[in-house]
């Protein structure tokens, strides 16, 4: 009976905490608009900006994914084929963007393209659109092409690690004799043939997977759109901006209608992309024989000049926005002349909270408390939901297990802003007092991370050899003792990964927080950065102060990953 309670309580908690707010929000929007989600989807273009947002969302996500591949594939190729001396450091540098909070990425790119920034000084002007960007703007007739380019490049920067992580191992572990054998054949004589008939079939699944994920992330990207392309609307950005007016009876019905329709459409696109990537992953698991990386690399040898330049460029590309951001926090314009000075005034202002309600230490404390809370909720809840699903599978109750499994994945089809609006509309009406509860931000964060925790833990649980449990029983341990002494330690690597991800995600979470908690003395660090940056910037310290806060957020996140990497004593997949 005890174990039944153990299995039922988390499932009920999960359903009521993670799913209920979303369902209630949908219910409320349906009530206010009088139309169902699918009808609303067809009415998106009735909102003055709906059609444009819809179009731009798809176009930018597609272009971002293409650009990511264009930049990422050569890097993955060079990295995978040759022997590199500092491969660990290169890999870490290339992974950095992917774990960077989105608001930090946005600040990084703003710093990179600023007037005294690196790009501007080498003649690439994404700001006022002179030079070749300006020429591009006027020749294509696309307004603000500099902004769009900045957004696409930032998305590519953000998702570069995905391509490298998906494609590189495939190249690095493919036995060189396959390629040698193919070269001998008539079909393999030309480079083009080798590309189309050998490498493409070999690499298409990881490439398509990377494409799908990049599309997905760019589709729902918010902080980067908000800051790099402020003139453009995506569905996510538009929902965030107008979402506050949704769900109020007899008030801005067009907004409620739009939010309902856009959420439905986003959910459908996300589900489609997720199931596509799931299917690709399954095909990918039918592996051909692999060799160790080292062997393959040694056979091909050291890189030539072009790969060296390429990898150097990639590493600089990965680090430049972050470095620019850190520099921008100490580079302050002078009031009267067009000159700059180096100073830590902005850091002082950030730590004293001169320009905002919360100071950096306060916001950091809030962020850490929420991250810890999110970790506890999502890891404990996620663990037990995964446990329940696995227990059902062991009892061969596959139907029920599958139902729970699907339900546990549903929140993955929801973007940050959608969760934010969900909490706003779902919780507010039932339990308004929650909006005075300091812990509230943990809810949207846990809603977003719990499905990931389940996705990490469930396969690991399935993989655990049942002999371990059997041995525990034979040794006389009861179920509780086996749980704590055997199961938990066996899952430790995955638990550490899940914890680090939950914490890092919560630390950097922007969309949901932006909608839910731009209030009170409980600003998180990403929200503080956004608030500082949103201030009228008459005063010269405003931007550098925002950059300083973003730099603190960046270092906190990286520190967390380093600690997690240390903790992860053995086994387990990488991040």
């Amino acid at each position, binding site marked *: 009976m005890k174990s039944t309670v153990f299995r039922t309580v988390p499932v009920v908690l999960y359903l009521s905490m993670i799913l209920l707010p979303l369902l209630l929000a949908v219910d409320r929007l349906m009530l206010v608009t009088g139309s169902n989600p699918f009808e609303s989807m067809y009415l998106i273009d009735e909102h003055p900006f709906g059609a444009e947002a819809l179009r731009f969302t798809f176009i930018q996500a597609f272009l971002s994914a293409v650009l990511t591949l264009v930049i990422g594939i050569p890097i993955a190729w060079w990295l995978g084929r040759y022997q590199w001396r500092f491969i660990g450091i290169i890999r870490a540098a290339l992974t950095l963007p992917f774990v960077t909070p989105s608001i930090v990425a946005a600040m990084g790119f703003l710093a990179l393209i600023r007037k005294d920034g690196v790009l501007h000084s080498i003649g690439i002007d994404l700001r006022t659109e002179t030079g070749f960007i300006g020429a591009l703007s006027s020749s294509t007739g696309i307004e603000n092409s500099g902004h769009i380019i900045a957004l696409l490049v930032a998305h590519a920067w953000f998702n570069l690690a995905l391509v490298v992580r998906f494609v590189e191992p495939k190249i690095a572990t493919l036995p060189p004799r396959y390629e040698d054998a193919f070269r001998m054949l008539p079909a393999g004589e030309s480079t083009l043939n080798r590309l189309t008939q050998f490498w493409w079939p070999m690499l298409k699944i990881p490439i398509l997977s990377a494409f799908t994920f990049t599309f997905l992330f760019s589709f729902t990207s918010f902080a980067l759109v908000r800051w790099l392309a402020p003139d453009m609307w995506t569905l996510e950005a538009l929902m965030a901006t107008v979402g506050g007016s949704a769900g109020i009876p007899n008030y801005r019905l067009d907004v409620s209608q739009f939010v309902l329709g856009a959420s439905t459409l986003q959910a459908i696109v996300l589900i489609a992309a997720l199931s596509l990537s799931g299917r690709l992953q399954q095909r990918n698991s039918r592996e051909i024989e692999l060799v160790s990386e080292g062997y393959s690399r040694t056979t091909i040898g050291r890189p030539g000049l072009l790969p060296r330049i390429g990898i150097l460029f990639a590493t600089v590309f990965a680090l430049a926005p972050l470095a620019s951001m850190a520099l921008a926090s100490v580079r302050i314009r002078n009031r009267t002349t067009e000159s700059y000075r180096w100073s830590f005034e902005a850091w002082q202002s950030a730590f004293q909270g001169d320009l905002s309600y919360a100071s950096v230490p306060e916001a950091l404390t809030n962020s850490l408390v929420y991250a810890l809370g999110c970790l506890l909720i999502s890891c404990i809840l996620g663990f037990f939901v995964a446990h329940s699903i696995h227990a059902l599978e062991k009892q061969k109750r596959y139907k029920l297990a599958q139902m729970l499994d699907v339900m546990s994945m549903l929140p993955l089809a929801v973007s940050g802003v959608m969760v934010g609006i969900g909490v706003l509309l779902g919780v507010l009406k039932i339990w308004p007092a929650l909006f005075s509860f300091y812990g509230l931000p943990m809810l949207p964060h846990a809603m977003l991370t719990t499905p990931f925790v389940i996705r990490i833990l469930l396969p690991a649980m399935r993989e655990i050899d049942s*002999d371990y449990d*059997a041995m525990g029983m*034979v040794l006389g*341990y009861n179920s509780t003792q086996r749980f704590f002494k055997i199961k938990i330690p*066996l899952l430790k690597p995955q638990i550490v990964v899940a914890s680090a991800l939950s914490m890092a995600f919560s630390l950097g979470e922007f969309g949901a927080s932006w909608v839910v908690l731009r209030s009170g003395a409980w600003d998180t660090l990403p929200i503080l950065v956004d608030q500082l940056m949103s201030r009228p910037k008459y005063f010269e310290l405003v931007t550098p102060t925002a950059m300083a806060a973003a730099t603190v957020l960046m270092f906190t996140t990286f520190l967390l990953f380093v600690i997690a990497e240390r903790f992860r004593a053995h086994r387990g997949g990488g991040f």
Partner: protein
Amino acid sequence: MSLIVQDLDVSFGANTVISNLNFEMKSGDIVAIIGPSGCGKTTLLRAISGLLKPTKGTIVLNGKNIEKQPCEQREVGMLFQRPVLFPFKDVLGNVLFAYKRKKDADMDQVNAILGELGLTGKENQAIETLSGGEAQRVVLARALLTHPRLMLLDEPLSALDVDLRRKIAHEIRSVLKARGIPAIHVTHDPEEAAIIGDQVLHWKDLQSSDDSLNEHSQSNTQIMGEPSSAPPNSITEQDTNDD
């Protein structure tokens, strides 16, 4: 020690693995059972250990019905085909799993057994670094430290090469005999069975789903403690077990 298995049936859904098995064992002997892979030997051991629940039948250990008792209360030891060691502990940590609480550990005894099995000096080694033979020795050490009433050996040496298999088979017999722990050893290897077992039985003689054979097997699968009273159908190319 006595063990009586009566009218044992085990089936998984429509698939009957053991049907009407009868089996009795007295005194501190080691019984080896030979049978081909997949015949149900492992299932029998799992039923005796409590890792699975028989569909029908009784299991009596030392005069007490245990078939309803949870596995963890049966006080039996077991070695699986593959050595089951917990990857998150080193050798000593795995051995100390014999004690539910660390403070209960009798370190003198632990060290003695480690010494006896040639594991001294490897206490702090990570388990990934052990060879197959060493790993199974660690499992054996751990099992012995729980002072089992009965040891179940489920082809523990099948993954090892011939020489090593022979060597460890002798070790197993020796440590069990030294402590007077009775054991059931199942294997498909007659040589291994001959080394470890006091008695060697053939699986096909223990169990038959054919009703006509039932009476026959029932009356003839009594395994008596004394080698001299070995039943006629127990294979006895046995018994040169002087380590």
